[in-house]
Structure formats: structure tokens, C-alpha cells
């Protein structure tokens, strides 16, 4: 019999039972809650007179709606009434049911997918859900992590289980080494460009090969985060010493004798050498340049030194229409050079790129430089209070502020514009987030997805430049 993939192992290890209709009931070790998708779930529990199955499996924090400007006034200071009520409701629900929550001005508050691994709430080998599609991020730890809807949030709260169907296995292997200035974000954007936004639909994607083996945990999180942008609900990286070193000493990680036991158990969290994948994609790391998305889907991505595609070069009518629609929305011309795209705003943040390494990368580029005159606003939004604290310890905040970027409080911010941070109509933004959909960052806003280093380079240049020219 062929060996098992990491996904197979995680799935089998959590199987409670197979239902008559072929679906599986899997046990969920961890649920992360935030203010947008949990209120009706808690309400559902209350109406049905149910209690959460297991309080200590849950952890919560508000992120989508929190203001990232001065907010010492707490929840009461949130201007938008709907945002305020969502944050308040999360606070009340967690208090009522006794769920641990890092509230708005707690140092440990942050974007769910940044906060949870940072705290050691997510560990190798666990199953985890959160009412947010970017839960795939957590697969970087060798955990099986799903994004779920509100009714499933309630289901997991009430039963500690998820009804699911087993996915297929895909291996994305990136061999060799990355060039200077090429980051995990460029790798995942390139991968999405290769397999397409629906390429991973129905699969759990495991990222393997030397590039991922040598990548930091934070980089692996950036990559897994965007698995969903390739259509896959699950992204995974096998566990190795880098994983173990990352987890050690975190608040909710095992200690002492239990630590030894856990590390021993985690050794098996790798795909077997003879495991069979339903699909394998192989990419050479050396072929990857810094990437920039030009269109309204993450697969509309090219190297910074390329040009915007020309629909005349395509034969497929659906593709031609897609390119034309995107060009119009983005206000770009066919064959326009990527480096000729003028920018209005820069956003460094989101669950994709708001961890300390991301901020270090960006700071390195802007240090000693100034934000270009045509940039109306350049935001740096750390992913959690602890990331912010660390960055300030290292003096990164001063580098940003001196260069003319704004240093903010942690939250989702301009990633989805549910709080006051938004793009104006028609504005171009170099953004380290994960979605460039129409209107995602504000009505009529034009998002270009890039790495933190590339966003920083764009901020000081006013247009896209190959960051390698600035860090030579």
C-alpha cells in the first residue's frame, strides 16, 4: 500500500465516524472566533439552549472591524455603529460562555490568523477552524485548518466536530533556491499564477520542496494563507525542526515532560516518501521574480519586469473578456509596463504579511528613504499587539514614520475595508494583502498584490520598481 500524505494522516487521526451519506465527522481541536461570523452562531446556541461542547478549545479576538488609529477609548470609540455592535457582541458572548478572548486593547489582540499561532493556540497535528477563509494560514504548522461558515461555527461550538468530505491531495513542489529579494509572497503569487484561482478546488495543497524546507514559519504562513486564493480550503507544510523551534515556549504550547511527548508525536507529521498525490505541480524556485498582480483576481499576476497582458495574444474568448473587464476596472492599458503603474496608496499589513519578518523586510527598503510625493497614504498595520511591540523594540516604527509611512494599531484594516481604512474610487494601491477583487479595499479601489519589500519599494518610488534595484 502506498504511504500516506500529511493530509491523509491528519484527517484519519481526527475521524470520529463516517456518516451513512458518506460524509465524515471529524473532531476539531481548536476554534478561533472573531466578531463578524460568530454572533449568529452564539445566538443559535442560546436559542437551542445549548452550551459549547468544550470551552478550552476556543480562543477569540476582534480584528475585522477594529479601528487601527488611536483607540485608547476602547469599543465605545468605534464610530460605525454596526462595527461597534459586532465587537461588543463578541466581548459579551465570550464573557457569557467563558471563552478566552483578547479584547481590543489587549497586547495579544490581533488578526485571528496572526494571533493564534503566535500564542501557540494552534499546534502541529491539530485540526482547527475559524469563520474565515484564510484559516488555511494555520496549515503552515502542519495543522489541518479549514475556513467555515457561520452555521458550521455553531456546529463546532456545539459538537466539537465538523461534517466534511475528504479532499484530494495536491503537492506543489518548489525546488532549488529563491533569488535575492524574492519572498514567500512572490512564491505563492507565482504558484497561483501557474495553477489558477480554481486550480486547487477540491484539494488540500501541500507545499513541499527545498524552498519550503528552507523557509521560515512566517513565510510558510504567508504561503498557506493564500492557498484559498488558488481554490484550496487547506494549505499544508510538513513539520520539521523549523516548526518545532517556532512553537517552543509559546503561551499555550506544551511545557516540560509534555513538550518532549509532543515533539515525539509531531515527528510523524510529514507525508510519507511513497505517498501518492492526485496532482503534483513542480516549479523551479530560481525562476521566480518579484510578482505584481495587475488585475482583479490573484491569478492575474506577472513579474515586476513584465507588462500588462494584451487580450489580442489570447485565443480563448472567456479569457479575453476577463482580461478586458479587468483592464477597464483597473484603468490599465494592454502592454503597459508594470513599472509604469502609478500608485496612490500603499498598504503593508493583513494576515498574509503583517508578521515581524514582513515588517523587517519593508523597513529595510524604506530606511533612509522618503515616501514619494504622489503617494497619498502609506499604512503599516502590524498583525497583532505583540508584533507591534516587537517592531517598536527593534525601532522599525521609527524607520517607517521617518520615511513618511503611518504606523498603526493591529487589525485587518485596509485588507477588506470594514473599518475606516479604505481606498478612494479609482485609486491604485500596492497592497500586501491577499485579495484584489473589485471593491475589496473600497468602492472602485484598484489593488495590486505584492510582497512587503515590493510594497515598500513602491512607497518610496511612487510606482512599481523591482525591489532588487533598491537592496543591491
Amino acid at each position, binding site marked *: 500500500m502506498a504511504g500516506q500524505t500529511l493530509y491523509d494522516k491528519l484527517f484519519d487521526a481526527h475521524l470520529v465516524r463516517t456518516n451513512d451519506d458518506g460524509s465524515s465527522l471529524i473532531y476539531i*481541536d481548536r476554534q478561533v472566533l472573531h466578531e463578524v461570523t460568530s454572533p449568529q452562531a452564539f*445566538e443559535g446556541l442560546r436559542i437551542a439552549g*445549548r452550551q459549547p461542547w468544550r470551552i478550552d478549545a476556543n480562543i477569540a479576538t476582534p480584528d475585522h472591524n477594529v479601528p487601527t488609529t488611536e483607540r485608547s477609548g476602547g469599543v465605545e470609540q468605534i464610530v460605525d455603529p454596526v462595527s461597534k455592535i459586532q465587537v461588543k457582541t463578541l466581548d459579551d458572548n465570550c464573557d457569557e460562555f467563558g471563552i*478566552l478572548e483578547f479584547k481590543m486593547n489587549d497586547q495579544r489582540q490581533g488578526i485571528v490568523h496572526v494571533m493564534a499561532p503566535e500564542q501557540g493556540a494552534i*499546534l502541529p*497535528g491539530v485540526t482547527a477552524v475559524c469563520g474565515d477563509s484564510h484559516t488555511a494560514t494555520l496549515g503552515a504548522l502542519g495543522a489541518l485548518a479549514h475556513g467555515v461558515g457561520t452555521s458550521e461555527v455553531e456546529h463546532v461550538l456545539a459538537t466539537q466536530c465538523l461534517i466534511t468530505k475528504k479532499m484530494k491531495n495536491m503537492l506543489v513542489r518548489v525546488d532549488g533556491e529563491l533569488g535575492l529579494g524574492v519572498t514567500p509572497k512572490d512564491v505563492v503569487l507565482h504558484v497561483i499564477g501557474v495553477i489558477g484561482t480554481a486550480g486547487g478546488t477540491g484539494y488540500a495543497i501541500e507545499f513541499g520542496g527545498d524552498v519550503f524546507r528552507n523557509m521560515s514559519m512566517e513565510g510558510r504562513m504567508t504561503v498557506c494563507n493564500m492557498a484559498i486564493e488558488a481554490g484550496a480550503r487547506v494549505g499544508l507544510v510538513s513539520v520539521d525542526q523549523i516548526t518545532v523551534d517556532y512553537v517552543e515556549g509559546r503561551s499555550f504550547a506544551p511545557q516540560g515532560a509534555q513538550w518532549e511527548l509532543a515533539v515525539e508525536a509531531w515527528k510523524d507529521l510529514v507525508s510519507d516518501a511513497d505517498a501518492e498525490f492526485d496532482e503534483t505541480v513542480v516549479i523551479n524556485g530560481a525562476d521566480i521574480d518579484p510578482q505584481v498582480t495587475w488585475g482583479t483576481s490573484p491569478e492575474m499576476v506577472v513579474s515586476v519586469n513584465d507588462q500588462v497582458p494584451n487580450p489580442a495574444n489570447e485565443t480563448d474568448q472567456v479569457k479575453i473578456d476577463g482580461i478586458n473587464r479587468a483592464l477597464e476596472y483597473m484603468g490599465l492599458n494592454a502592454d503597459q509596463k508594470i513599472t509604469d503603474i502609478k500608485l496612490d496608496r500603499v498598504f503593508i499589513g493583513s494576515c498574509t504579511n503583517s508578521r515581524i519578518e514582513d515588517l523587517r523586510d519593508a523597513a529595510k527598503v524604506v530606511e533612509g528613504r522618503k515616501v514619494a510625493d504622489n503617494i497619498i497614504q502609506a499604512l503599516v498595520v502590524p498583525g497583532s499587539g505583540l508584533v507591534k511591540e516587537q517592531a517598536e523594540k527593534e525601532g522599525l516604527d521609527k524607520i517607517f514614520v521617518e520615511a513618511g509611512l503611518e504606523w498603526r494599531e493591529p487589525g485587518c484594516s485596509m485588507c477588506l475595508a470594514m473599518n475606516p481604512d479604505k481606498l478612494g474610487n479609482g485609486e491604485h494601491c500596492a497592497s500586501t494583502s491577499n485579495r484584489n477583487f473589485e471593491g475589496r479595499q473600497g468602492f472602485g479601489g484598484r489593488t495590486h498584490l505584492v510582497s512587503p519589500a515590493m510594497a515598500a519599494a513602491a512607497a518610496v518610488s511612487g510606482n512599481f520598481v523591482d525591489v532588487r534595484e533598491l537592496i543591491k
Partner: protein
Amino acid sequence: MNKFTLHTGVAAPMDRANIDTDMIIPKQFLKSIKRSGFGKNLFDELRYLDEGQPDQECTGRPLNEDFVLNQSRYQGASVLFARENFGCGSSREHAPWALEDFGIRSVIAPSFAEIFYNNCFKNGLLPIVLSEEQVDQLFTEVQANEGYELTVNLEEQVVVTPSGERIAFEIDDFRKHCLLNGLDDIGLTLQHADDIRAYEAKRQAEAPWLFGAIK
């Protein structure tokens, strides 16, 4: 989810085809963080004369006296008679939430929009399909007799009129089973609570560090 076995209640006739989900619960009320509390805005645009705002107190609002549910003879109605294609429009679960919160337990019509029909079962609401003629007959009877009450017997799959007439209806076995036992997905999963507990005990033995750590 509420069980549905046997229900007797005042019936009210909504004499209008294609009642859509926007009529059932207008979009300005969807921002709520709750799934209860929509009842006061059920049929808001038909029911009140002013334009409803979210979070508004509804008791003092001017009522449309012509609207069926505002008429004194239909107060406390829990069975709704409707015309074809009831619940068309969006997939929002707010529509059955609003009906249920208002106190409606069953809707009887010649046809329903499919998604709405499905959503009803997730929320303890019983949609019953009868023929055009049977629905016509019910409309005539309820309009002619004040205080008309209908009994819905899910176990036997019949509705019983005040005169004792029994009208049979069809329902899928699985859905019937779920409603009779008050089972939603969660309820169904909880039928396997012993399996879950057994798994959990094994999990705790294998990975004790995952238990009691977050507090």
C-alpha cells in the same frame, strides 16, 4: 431546533402569489448580529405605513390596518396560507428566522421557492404543499369563519380543518424524521455524542497538551 409534531393554531390567509424574501424581511434589517428578533419586521413594508429603520422600536409605528396579520381576527396566527411560489428571491435564512420569530409554525401553499423550502426545515418551520384546489378551499373557509383554527399533524401527514376534514400532504421521510425529533445538523451530530466522547477521551490520552491549555 424546535420539534414539530402536532400543532393547532389560528390560520391567516396571505392572498398573494410570489411573496419574496425581501417582502418577508426587507434588506435593511439584515445587518443585525442576531437570528432572533426579526419577527417585528416580518413583512415590514406591507405591515407598517412608514419606512422601517433597523433597530427601531416598532410598537408605536402606524399599522396598515388592511394587512391580514394586523386584523384582529387573525391575531396570534401561527399557520399561514399562501399562494404559489412563496419565499422566492434570495437564499437568506433571515426569512424563515423572521417567520419563526413572529410565531408562524407552518406555511401552506401550492408551491414554494426551493431554497426557502429547505431553509424552513433548518429552523423548525413546516412548509406544506397542497394542490391549488385544496389551498383555495382553505382560503375560502378561513375567510368565512372567524377564529378558524387548523391542526397540523406531521406524524400522520395530515392537516385537520375545524369540521374534522383531513387533508393529506407529502413530505420527505428524512425531513419528517428531523422535524419530529427537532434535529438540525447539530442535533444529528449530537446523536453521536458517545462517539465524540470516546474519540475525545482517546485524543486526550494521546495529546494531553491540547486539553486545558487555553484558559
